[in-house]
Each structure stands twice: as C-alpha cells, then as structure tokens.
C-alpha cells in the first residue's frame, strides 16, 4: 500500500485500561503482563501473546509457546 503506518506514527504502549479487560482467548483465564517483553502470558494455555506497537495480539497462532522453565519462573513471581 502507498503508506506505511508504522513509519507515520511513533511506537506506542498498550493502554492499561484495555489490558485489564483481556483474558486468554483459549482458557478465558487472567493474563500476566510482562512489560519488559511486551507480552501477555497465559499460564493455563502456556502461551505468551505478543503486544506489537501497543496492539495486543490475542491470537494463539501468533503466540509464543512457553517451556517448563519459563512457567516455573512465572510461578516464583
């Protein structure tokens, strides 16, 4: 397309009021917000949903699978 929005706008943070409404689309359980990695973590589904340019991407096929180590680490948080 003629213009690329990513260049036209500064990168953005997700709106916390939107984040607090979100749940895992698969399990409908609460998510853990990893601000540093810009991910929303579903412990129940063992998935980390990315937040790209401030837009939460709540699609399982776009999410990163979490391994046992990461899940254990989350358990200590």
């Amino acid at each position: 397309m003629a213009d690329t929005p990513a260049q036209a706008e500064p990168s953005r943070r997700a709106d916390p009021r939107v984040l607090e409404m979100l749940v895992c689309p698969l399990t409908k359980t609460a998510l853990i917000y990893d601000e540093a990695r810009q991910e929303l973590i579903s412990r129940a589904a063992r998935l980390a949903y990315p937040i790209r340019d401030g837009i939460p991407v709540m699609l399982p096929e776009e999410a990163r699978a979490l391994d046992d180590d990461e899940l254990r680490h989350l358990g200590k948080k």
Partner: protein
Amino acid sequence: MAKSLVQQQFGAHAAAYATSAVHAKGASLGRLVELVRPEPHWQALDIATGAGHTAAAFAPHVARVIASDITDEMLAQARKLAMAKGLANMETASVDAEALAFESGRFDLVTCRIAPHHFPDIPMFAGEVWRVLKPGGTFALVDNIAPDAESTPGFSSADLREAALAYNAFETMRDPSHNRCLGLAEWSEIVTDTGFDLVHKERLGKDMEFQPWAERLGAEPATIARLKDMLVDGEPALQAFLRPRLEQEKLWFTLDEAILIARKPR
C-alpha cells in the same frame, strides 16, 4: 480454513477498505447508530472492525470503544482513522471473533458490521458476543444476507436454496475469504437461539456498481468476466435478489444488508 485467507486478503487491501465509500459511509452505519442509541457511559467492542469505520462512528457517543480485528494492516488503518478523527477513546486489539479475549460481562455494546460472512462458525461467534456482554447489553449486527423467503418472496424453497448457493459462490469467486452469507431468517434464529431478545431487524438495499466492487479485492480480469456472467445470467431467483441493471452504460446490482439489534436479557 478461512482465517489466514482473511488475513491475506484484507492485509493486502486494507487501504482500499479505508477509502471505500460503502464501508465508510454506508447507509447502514448511520442507521446503526440511530437504532442502537448509545449512551455516554458505555463500554463498546467492535468486532472485525476492518478499517475502523464502525468503531469510529460509535466512539463519540460512548465512554470507550475497542476496535478489534485479526488483520494487523486493518488495525493499523483503524488506528490511523482514530488519530485522524482525534478519537482518544478508541483502542485497537487483535482478537478473533469466535474466541474473544475479553472477560465476561464487560461490554454494554458489541457491534459487528459487514464481516460475519467471513466467519467459519457463526453460532460460536454469537455465543462469544453473549458472553462478553453485560446483562441488558446490546448486540448490533450488520451483514450482507443471502436470498431466502423473507428477502425474496415468490420463489420455491428449492429455488431459493439454489439462489443462496449461487450468491455465495458469486461472493467467494470475488473474494476467496468469503465464507457464507446467511439468510435473514437464519440470522434471526441464531440470535434468538443464543438467548438474545431480537428487538429490531430490517433490510437495507445497497446499490453497487459492479466494476469497482469486483476490483476492490484485486480479482483478475478473467475472474471479473466470470462474475459478470454469473450476475447477468443467473437464475430468476438470483436475478430477483441481485437486481442486475444497466445505468448510464454501467452495470449495477443491489446487495441486501440486514441490521439486527438484539439485547441480552437482564
């Protein structure tokens, strides 16, 4: 099957939808706001927002609207629209219509306009809308419909079934991500089976000039020629439904949109 096709189709043609007169200014958009009568404290969700036109139409009337879609390029267009219109209460999220990533009972209004014909599982979509709505919440739906006895009277049910199949084949040829347009009666049944009270339904004819409609999603010339044949040589029930005609040497036809307003009982 259709989800990645939808992302491919709309990813590539997001800008065409941002500027499409039908999607931006369609009569159903103003009519929808009028019928819904949004309130200033409402939390709203627009599903399969595309370039964000429906979310943007409601944003000035509600506390907040989340514009959701599964296509990144569409969400980028929706965000551009929100910025251009100075709509600070319009947010974007990438969310699947059949697996909504929202807590139950969070929204006063869920809208979905000219999109469910892409969804593989309409009852599941309706169930998810039900889940995220508060008791008393409003589900406002607009979609193109296929011919049935309600929209196209005077034909046998076999002829109407054929016409509905032919109409959906016509749409799928133009846009492979098209899944299926339902008939108006079928929509009413799904909405009420989900548990909603259907408070209003109406049909709105949408006159389309064939050529720009056929070209918007980048169909090949050979495909456009086949579409034209299907439109002008269709069976009588399909002709009665699509009403192909020449106006000032241009081929026009009419699509039927249904508006359904449903309420989740308190």
